[in-house]
């Protein structure tokens, strides 16, 4: 099963302050450890929201509204993510606990979210039926 470890934004990450050399090195060591364990799938950092664009739908069925960054609520902001593939939720938690405190200064926050994984569901008949319906919808009726 796959999990995403989401590193939340802080006032520093939003201000574009680069992390300390020490933190960068610690993160690198951590990523190497993930890779050597064969669990690392993807990892990336995001630009601050000053260059972000938000598209919202204030009215149901209405037109989208475009807002330029920066956005204010740092805790709601994603600064980066690391995706891992592990055997259990506990293993994901254990890995997440080992990630270095991303920003220090008491603002560091990591959120762990499980990713929907179809290969977990291939044995579930209800799910398979839904997938089949989706497939037919996408492709039109199957030729015989």
């Amino acid at each position, binding site marked *: 099963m796959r999990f995403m470890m989401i590193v939340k934004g802080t006032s520093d990450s939003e201000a574009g302050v680069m992390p300390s050399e020490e933190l960068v090195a610690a993160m690198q060591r951590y990523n*190497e450890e993930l*890779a*050597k*364990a*064969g*669990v*690392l*799938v*993807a990892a990336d950092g995001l630009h601050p929201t000053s260059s972000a664009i938000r598209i919202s739908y204030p009215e149901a069925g209405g037109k989208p509204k475009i807002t330029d960054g920066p956005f204010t609520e740092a805790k709601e902001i994603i600064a980066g993510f690391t*995706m891992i*593939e*592990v*055997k*259990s939720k*506990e*293993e994901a*938690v*254990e*890995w997440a606990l080992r990630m270095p405190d991303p920003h220090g200064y008491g603002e560091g926050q990591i959120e762990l979210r499980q990713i929907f994984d*179809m*290969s*977990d*569901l*291939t044995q579930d*008949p209800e799910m*398979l*039926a839904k*997938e*089949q319906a989706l*497939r037919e919808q*996408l*492709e039109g009726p199957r*030729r*015989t």
Partner: protein
Amino acid sequence: MSGRAAHRAIDAVWRIESAKLIARLATMVRDVGLAEDLAQDALLIALERWPETGIPDNPGAWLMTTAKRRAIDLLRRNKLRDRKYEEYGRASPLFTEDDVETETGEIGDELLRLIFATCHPSLSREARVALTLRLLGGLTTDEIAHAYLVPEPTVAQRIVRAKKTLSASGVKLDVPEGKELEERLSSVLEVVYLMYNEGYSATAGGSWIRPTLCQEALRLGRMLAEVAPREPEVHGLVALMEIQSSRFKTRVGPSGEPILLMDQNRALWDRLLIRRGLAALERARSLGRPLGPYALQAAIAACHAQALTPGDTDWARIAALYEALSRAAPSPVVELNRAVAIAMAFGPAIGLQIVDQLADEPALKGYYLLPSVRGDLLAKLGRMEEARAAFERAASMTQNLREQDLMRRRAAECAARDAGDKDGSPRETV
């Protein structure tokens, strides 16, 4: 923490730490079986203590210290040492306290030495697979038995015997060099790919995919790519597994029936895995040596992955890659696949010629895909009665129920179309 939750958390720590722990201990005590025993001892102590004390801040270091202490206890208690000595029928002398206290090297090297030992050619294939899953995957014998659909004692026996063989034959924990490296590495890659294939195309029973084995193999492959980054075939194998895994959710239909590559819904292929596979293939290429069998197979898989629709498939390139593959690793099965690619690129008649040349190949006797491919080409040429017979033959040659169904269905389609032709009703073109 409740007892159950604590155990699950300890399981997770074990999953993360066990391979590193065993690899490091094996370097110290120069014996894989003994290293695992020491690691298991440390785990038992953790299972006793951690539910009360909580998991320590650095559980890996805690387990290591505990295991080292056990190793020294073992040395000091002569009686136990002699027993262990006999138990393993060791050829080489036991380790010393100095060995245990010595600063250890890079963990990547230690893991690599461990996998070279668990995949040692002196062990049977089954033993190599079981031992690797156990020591590098941290799987219990029960989990391994479940994945392979064999009784638990069988797996336990295999592992015990494998450990004894390694000790008795004095297999060194090393990373071989030169010509030997090539052979030993190919044994490692074979184990990983056997594991993957067993999971990907389950040979027995009604299920087509056993995810545990595929995931373990992929994890081991990704690990190998980090600890042996200079070996193109390691990246080739990883690329192959990543790309094949990208099709997991489209390989099986709603009632568990197989969906063939050309009929799969490509919108559901996992783009992330495809991207990882292409990157791994690029790493293999960038090392500047001729591509080996795994990388060539990955390159073929990549052709399919990059075709947005079946019609976009570059069959001429695939045929050329199969030709390269048949030179690197000659096999009638590869020839059969080359025939399919050539048929797709240059027409079914040329493909059928190659297939018919393979008809007497002893290695393909009993290989159901030979008549299946033949049936497919005959059907494309409109020779429905011959096609039906070929599919019937294919159905009678496979043990897998799903494959049997698919072959019978295709035979029935040919029969119906054959009857349709005779009625003079219009025929659908392929």
